[in-house]
């Protein structure tokens, strides 16, 4: 592990505390609120400068919603998102007005999942990649073109491409363009939302390599949202696992893969088919289905599917606790049994 370890002297770049996002379910003509979908329900984590935190879970677990809250693409219902700016101030992103937020946008950028819908098809690469520069004050077109050329070279594309439109490029190339746009304003924190899951296997490796290379060259900090555990393991320093809107485990990559401290994490890892016919991964398949975040089960949300569940798990909701140094888990029985 060559990234800086966490929780030491320097304060974190991002400190998310009790993040909540509820979506109301409305009925009828008067839009009466009948229920709340707790998409994100009290999530805490920190990200240190230069590290990559993986946010993992199955669809509907709230990982995407949480990452969009951090970007303030959507407004969180509650909680704080404390961010340390380039000039050393700490601000709560969750509390900022849109106007106060705008200057900070340059520091926090996003890489999208779908390389086809994330670029404006009616704008050339120069305009697509150069737009963040333009709205952040680089009005001179020549200057902008030079910077775009530099960015394209950085992500492995030819600068001459800048006068082309996105439709001229393949999925992998478009993903590079999206990365170039995200890097245009020299951000410090990059939220990557499933950046390789829409790509073909042979292209996925190219983009993963590019992300690793850019991180070490530009000292980037990544929040890496993904569902593919092998990709997450490959690229992340620490991993946060989400289940029904909550964080269930948070630990350094080696620790979590070496000795998961939550039964869901363990089941998730066992469920990944190993690309080696000599290794059979059949034991301990997780039964049942992910519950709806509009009506989660009592006690521990995972207890109906957990083979280690006891009476306590049914009634008492476990809190996130530190089971080993830097290793957090939300399980009553962690440490008692091996998962």
């Amino acid at each position, binding site marked *: *592990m*060559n*990234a800086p370890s966490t929780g030491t002297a320097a304060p974190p770049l991002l400190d998310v505390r009790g993040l909540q996002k509820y979506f109301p379910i409305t009925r009828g003509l008067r839009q009466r609120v009948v229920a709340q979908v707790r998409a994100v329900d009290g999530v805490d984590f920190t990200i240190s400068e230069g590290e990559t935190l993986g946010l993992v879970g*199955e*669809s509907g677990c709230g990982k995407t919603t949480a990452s969009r809250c951090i970007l303030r693409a959507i407004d969180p219902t509650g909680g704080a998102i404390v961010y340390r700016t380039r000039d050393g101030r700490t601000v709560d992103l969750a509390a900022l007005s849109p106007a106060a937020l705008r200057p900070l946008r340059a520091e926090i950028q996003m890489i999208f999942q779908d390389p086809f819908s994330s670029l404006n098809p009616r704008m050339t690469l120069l305009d697509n990649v150069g737009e963040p520069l333009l709205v952040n004050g680089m009005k001179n077109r020549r200057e902008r073109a030079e910077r775009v050329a530099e960015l394209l070279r950085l992500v492995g594309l030819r600068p001459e491409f800048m006068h082309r439109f996105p439709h001229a490029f*393949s*999925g*992998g*190339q478009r993903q590079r363009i999206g990365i170039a746009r995200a890097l245009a304003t020299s951000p410090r924190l990059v939220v990557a939302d499933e950046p390789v899951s829409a790509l*073909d*296997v*042979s*292209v*996925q*490796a*190219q983009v*993963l*390599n590019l992300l*690793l*290379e850019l991180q070490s060259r530009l000292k980037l900090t990544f929040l890496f949202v993904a*569902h593919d*555990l*092998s*990709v997450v*393991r*490959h*690229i992340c320093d620490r991993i946060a696992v989400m289940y029904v809107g909550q964080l269930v485990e948070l630990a350094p*990559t080696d620790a979590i*893969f070496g000795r998961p401290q939550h039964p869901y994490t363990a*089941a*998730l*890892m*066992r*469920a*990944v*088919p*190993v*690309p*080696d*016919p*000599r290794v*059979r*991964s*059949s034991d301990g*398949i*997780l*039964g049942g*289905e*992910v519950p709806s975040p509009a009506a989660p089960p009592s006690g521990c949300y995972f207890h109906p599917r957990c083979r280690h569940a006891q009476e306590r798990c049914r009634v008492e909701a476990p809190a996130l606790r530190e089971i080993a140094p830097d290793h957090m888990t939300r399980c009553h029985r962690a440490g008692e049994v091996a998962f």
Partner: protein
Amino acid sequence: MTPLLSVRDLRVSFALDEGLVRAVDGTSFDVMPGQVLGVVGESGCGKSVTMRAILQLIERPGRITSGEIRFRRRDGDNAVDIARLPPRGPEMRDIRGGEIALIPQEPMAAFSPVHTVGDQVIEAILLHGHRWQEGGRRLRRAEARDITVGLFRDVGISMPEQRIDAFSWQLSGGLRQRAMIAMALSCKPRLLIADEPTTAIDVTTQAQVLALLRDLQARYNTAIIFITHDLGVIAQMASYVVVMYLGRVMEQGPVDDIFHNPRHPYTKALLRSIPSLHGATRVALPVISGALPHPFNRPPGCPFHPRCPDAMARCAAAIPSLQPVAAHQLASCFLHHDQAEPA
């Protein structure tokens, strides 16, 4: 052993306004009775089109231009050439659903949203009623309904009596795919084609569905063609693997040989480029350079040669044919033989 299904030099092309797309360009492989054959490849490699061709479900502007799809309807019988059967004729309809069944990719879209799932399964049973009812009497709807409830129970759907009257959009992704599997199994097919059956569902649900398929396969000894882009799924499910790229078979062989002794540069590169749960982390992965070519822009010669690290002058000029390279392994690569496709 004689193969159940034998595909020989299959070619399928789509005549689009912008030009001709050769989606499948000379594909050959066999499926043995009771075997799970894995077909793996990236987008545009023609794996799904090949499977649709086997069911004669290619829609205009696509058509099978040449090749054979020989299928043995009963043990000991001579095989019929599906590629020669009229797509909408009675024999093809009898094979479809009756002897070769399909598990599609998107269980959500694969059910009609305005008919109950039970209705759609019952219909499949009634269509091939003679497979359940020996002696000519037509199957009654109530009987088909009972069979469906049994099938639902078989594939692990709880409360099958209630679920049978549900609409597909009222079921979870996992249940939908189970219902789809029940429908595919409804007429005891000899061959099951699973077209990326777990791509649209989550990993824990995927594990359930894969376990179910393995279990059913062991119970009924049905042959399965399993199509996927996920090498992990292939390794866990298949006993024999076909690797496709741009409409052609690059390599095929027993699963262990493909994963531990790959011969074709494409297979090798593909296996190396996936991050695993065990390898070194945060290091550069070996990559396949370049991108998949646009379908209108097929390279001449071996389709993989522009991205191939071992490409030779000859690779751009001639197309290597699929030849044996080991006891049970075949590859189409000039590194291993010098047989070219006749021009």
